């Protein structure tokens, strides 16, 4: 379909305006982080800092516990992603390869977890974790985030395994591989990109959590995650928006970068998980 020059121009103009409005909040976050306090408190606001204050980042990193919080977020994410990936690789493989009686129901049973309000689930989990002494420990998040992650990863991986031909492991089994051996030595290596994409998606889910961290970790400052920590900055240093923004950049940046470089895979996962 050929467009006239005017139509092309109009398309780009609309696109620029739309992207400009929609992405402005992200731009504003970076600008605020780079502005001086004086620039933040002036009207009309300055849309580009006269001298970008990169030192705000180092200041926030070293004078606030932001690095510790990021470390805690990473630990919780690694733990919950690890746990979820192990169980959902097996489950996804099983759902993809075996037509089990009741298998589909069991798969849907795993999926139903997506429907539950976190604010409902958090009450009994709090009671359970309190009874077994996990409150204040990152282990509580590893388990709680698994509730968020497993329904997604199981179905994402099932979809991914479905795209790998069965002949692959059948050939391996003819050559004397056991079924599990065929899965580990033949299917999983082939599925590496899918596994990586799923793990990244799981990481995003864990990284973004606030509800569970707020409930299970509030009493133990040393174990706060980044999302929990930054909300306390908002209350405490209400006027220092440049510092809060710099901290927010630290928290948002890993996910933004993952998204920019791996958008195709993440989007694939998002749409695959939702089709079910």
């Amino acid at each position: 379909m050929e467009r006239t020059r005017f139509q092309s121009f109009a398309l780009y103009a609309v696109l620029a305006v739309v992207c400009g409005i929609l992405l402005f909040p992200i731009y504003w976050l970076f600008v605020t982080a780079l502005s001086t306090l004086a620039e933040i408190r002036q009207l009309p606001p300055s849309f580009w800092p006269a001298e970008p204050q990169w030192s705000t980042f180092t200041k926030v990193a070293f004078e606030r516990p932001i690095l510790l919080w990021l470390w805690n977020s990473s630990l919780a994410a690694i733990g919950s992603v690890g746990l979820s990936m192990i169980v959902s690789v097996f489950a996804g493989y099983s759902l993809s390869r075996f037509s089990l009686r009741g298998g589909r129901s069991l798969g849907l049973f795993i999926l139903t977890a997506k429907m539950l309000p976190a604010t409902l689930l958090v009450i009994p989990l709090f009671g359970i974790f309190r009874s077994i002494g996990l409150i204040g420990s990152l282990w509580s998040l590893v388990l709680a985030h698994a509730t968020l992650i497993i329904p997604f990863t199981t179905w994402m991986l099932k979809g991914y395994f479905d795209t790998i031909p069965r002949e692959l492991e059948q050939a391996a089994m003819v050559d004397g591989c056991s079924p599990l051996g065929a899965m580990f030595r033949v299917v999983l290596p082939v599925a590496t990109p899918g596994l990586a994409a799923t793990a990244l998606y799981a990481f995003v889910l864990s990284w973004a959590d606030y509800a569970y961290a707020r409930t299970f970790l509030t009493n133990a400052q040393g174990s706060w995650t980044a999302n929990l920590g930054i909300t306390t900055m908002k209350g405490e240093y209400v006027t220092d928006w440049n510092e809060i923004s710099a901290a927010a950049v630290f928290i948002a940046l890993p996910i933004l970068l993952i998204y920019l470089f791996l958008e195709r895979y993440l989007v694939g996962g998002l749409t695959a998980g939702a089709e079910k």
Partner: protein
Amino acid sequence: MSLRFLDLARPSRQHWLGYLLLLPAVALVALIIVYPLFVSLDLSFQKIGMATLNAPRKPFTLDNYHKLFTSPDFWNACWVTIKLVVVVSAACFVVGLGTALLVNNRFKGRTLARLFVALPWAVPEVIAVVIFAWIFDSSFGLMNWLFIKLGVTSQMINWFSEPTAAFWVVAITMIWKGYPFVSIMTLAGLQSIPEDFYNAAKVDGASALQRFRYITIPVLMPVLGVTLVLVILWVFRDFSIIKVLTDGGPLKATQTLSIMTYDQAFGFFNMGYASAIGIVTLILCVVASLLMLGRKSQAMY
């Protein structure tokens, strides 16, 4: 017992392996999702302040539910939730569909444009709150400056102490965070439409509008149905954005069922009562999604 029993390679035993592989996930889901769900249900029928597992069970009572349905706070929360669901889902759909159709055109830099329109998806909810809390800041926020500049208002609006204003701040933050999902899903749907459909329609003399009406919309319908359900469920259950942005205030103007559940459980330590609110929320979620999925499957045939 001979070891042959464990030889899962034998065709007659293969399904055993299938169940075995499924077992850890099912067990984990049962343990950390389904069992807690039943604990909640049980708690909702007890007058209980603090949930512990080892305490003796309190007597069965319907008090929590009775208190709930006679509480004006509960009906207010229902109303706020419904308003938010309608406003946010509708706007997410308009923006999401619009951006998807826009970047589905063929032009140079399309890949980059696709990357950009869905970028807010990658911003964690709490960070989105930080950004919008600053934009709507009552002293130096950009929005106040813009409103005065445009002549909408002559004085600074205190966005977070004015009920209607606070509701809109919450809604705008949620729309910004939620529309990329619609955009991504719609785009995936659009790309599954074969080019041939459009070419054939053009040969038959269908106008652009007709092609949109008779090809694009019907093919997208199932995707849009599922997406709508997921967006509605998300707004229904969301906690982080409202909790951090307004904490349900001012004057409960942004107190949804989720926020009310949480505050009753961890603000006032009425975990039995909170569980009852949570159970009602869950039932509403299930009913809403069944109704809509039902409609969708009807539309498909």
